[in-house]
C-alpha cells in the first residue's frame, strides 16, 4: 500500500525552491527557511509568486512528486508533469468508457449517490451533535434537507442517463447548500452563508469552501496520475480544455467530508475570524495571505484522521482515501471490479 506522503505548501511571496542533493530547499531572500528530503514528499503546492529551479522541477517529475502552481487565492495555474507514464491500456479503456454513455453511467451514478449520501451524513451529524441546542427553524431546516438528500440518493441509483444524474446532483446541491447556513453555529454576520457563490466567492464561507476545494482537487489529481489515469477525461464533468474533469469527478465524494467539515470546524471553533479576509469592492471576499496557514494546517490535520474504509474494511487516513478511490476506479475500468465502489462516510 502506498504511504500517505506529506504535501508542502509554499505561501511566502518571493520564495524560491531549489534542489540540493536529494533535498528540497526553500529560500526567502537568499535565506534558507526550510529543507526537506524529497522522498518524504508527495506534492508541492505553490501559491502566488513562488519560484522553482528547473533542476528541482525535473527531479520532482522523476520522483513522482506532483507540483502545482496556484494563484495566491488558490486558483489553479499550472503544474509540472514528467514524461507521459502509466498504463496505455488503462487510459485507452478510460477514453472508451467516457465515450460510452452506458458504461459511464455506472460510474456517474456511484459518484453522485456517494456525494449525496456524504452530504446527508454531514447534516445528520450536525443534527445528532447539536440538534438539541439549535433553534427550531434550524433543526427543521436541516431535517428537511437531510430527508431530501436521502430521496435524491435513492433516485440517482435508478437514473437512466448521465444527464438525469447531473440533474439529481443539482437538486442535492440545492438542498444541501440551502441548509448549510444552519450548520454554522456562530452569531456573526460575516459567516452567514447565503448560497454558494464562486468566481469570485461573495462571502467568507464561500471563500473558505473554494480554497479548500482547490486543495482537494490537487490531491485528487495527484492520486489519479499516480494510478495512471488521465485526470482530464471525466465522466460526470464534460470535457473542457484545461479542466481536470476526472479529478473533479473523483473529488465529488470527498467535498463534504474533506472540505466542508473543515470549513465548519474552522468557523465554529473560532479558529478563523472576520479579520482573516479581505473584502474587495464589488463584493468579492478573499482569504488573506497570512490566514491561509491556519486553513492549510486544519486541512492537513483533517487528512490525518483515521477512518475505516467501507469497501476495503481497512483502517486508513482520510488523506489516503483519494488514492484508494483512484485505484478502485482503475480496477473497475480494467474490468476487475463490476462497479465502482464509491466512498461513503459514516
Amino acid at each position: 500500500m502506498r504511504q500517505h506522503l506529506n504535501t508542502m505548501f509554499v505561501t511566502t511571496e518571493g520564495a524560491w525552491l531549489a534542489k540540493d542533493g536529494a533535498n528540497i530547499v526553500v529560500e526567502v531572500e537568499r535565506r534558507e527557511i526550510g529543507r526537506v528530503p524529497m522522498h518524504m514528499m508527495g506534492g508541492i503546492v505553490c501559491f502566488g509568486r513562488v519560484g522553482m529551479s528547473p533542476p528541482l522541477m525535473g527531479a520532482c517529475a522523476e520522483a513522482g512528486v506532483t507540483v502545482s502552481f496556484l494563484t495566491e487565492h488558490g486558483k489553479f495555474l499550472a503544474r509540472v508533469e514528467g514524461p507521459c507514464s502509466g498504463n496505455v491500456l488503462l487510459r485507452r479503456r478510460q477514453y472508451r468508457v467516457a465515450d460510452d454513455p452506458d458504461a459511464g453511467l455506472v460510474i456517474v451514478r456511484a459518484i453522485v449517490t456517494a456525494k449525496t449520501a456524504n452530504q446527508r451524513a454531514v447534516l445528520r451529524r450536525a443534527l445528532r451533535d447539536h440538534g438539541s441546542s439549535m433553534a427550531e427553524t434550524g433543526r427543521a431546516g436541516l431535517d428537511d434537507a437531510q430527508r431530501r438528500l436521502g430521496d435524491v440518493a435513492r433516485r440517482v441509483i435508478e437514473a437512466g442517463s448521465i444527464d438525469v444524474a447531473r440533474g439529481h446532483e443539482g437538486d442535492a446541491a440545492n438542498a444541501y447548500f440551502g441548509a448549510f447556513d444552519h450548520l454554522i453555529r456562530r452569531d456573526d454576520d460575516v459567516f452567514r452563508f447565503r448560497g454558494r457563490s464562486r468566481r469570485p466567492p461573495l462571502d467568507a464561507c464561500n471563500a473558505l469552501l473554494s480554497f479548500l476545494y482547490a486543495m482537494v482537487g490537487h490531491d485528487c489529481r495527484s492520486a489519479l496520475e499516480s494510478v495512471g489515469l488521465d485526470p482530464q477525461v471525466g465522466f460526470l464533468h464534460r470535457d473542457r480544455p484545461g479542466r481536470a474533469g476526472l479529478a473533479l469527478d473523483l473529488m465529488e465524494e470527498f467535498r463534504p467530508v474533506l472540505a466542508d467539515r473543515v470549513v465548519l470546524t474552522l468557523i465554529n471553533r473560532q479558529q478563523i475570524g472576520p479579520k482573516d479576509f479581505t473584502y474587495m469592492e464589488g463584493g468579492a471576499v478573499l482569504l488573506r495571505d497570512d490566514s491561509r496557514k491556519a486553513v492549510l494546517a486544519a486541512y492537513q490535520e483533517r487528512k490525518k484522521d483515521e477512518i475505516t474504509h467501507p469497501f476495503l474494511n481497512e483502517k486508513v487516513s482520510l488523506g489516503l482515501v483519494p488514492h484508494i478511490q483512484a485505484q478502485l476506479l482503475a480496477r473497475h475500468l480494467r474490468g476487475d471490479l463490476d462497479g465502482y465502489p464509491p466512498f461513503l462516510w459514516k
Partner: protein
Amino acid sequence: MLMLITYDVNTQDAAGRRRLRRVAKACRDFGQRVQFSVFECEVDPAQWTALRARLLGEIDQSTDSLRFYHLGANASRRIEHAGAKPALDLDGTLVF
C-alpha cells in the same frame, strides 16, 4: 521507520574532511540534521539499505565511526527536545 544516525569522522587530513562532507551529505539526502553530527532519517527498509550501504562506503573503518539507532515507527513518542534548534516535524503540516 525513523533512524537516528550519528558519526565521528577523523578530520585531521584533507581526505578526512572530504569523508565528513560526504557522510553528512548522504545523511542529509535522507533526513534532517538535528545536531552537528546527528541526523534523523525517516526511511522505509529499502531506502535504509541504500543509505546504510552509501554511508559504509564513504567512511574509513580504521579511523571513523558510525552509530545507527533504530527508533521504529512510533518514534515521535520516544523523542524529547529541549533548548535551541527545534527540529522540523517533517510529517506535520509544512507551510513555508
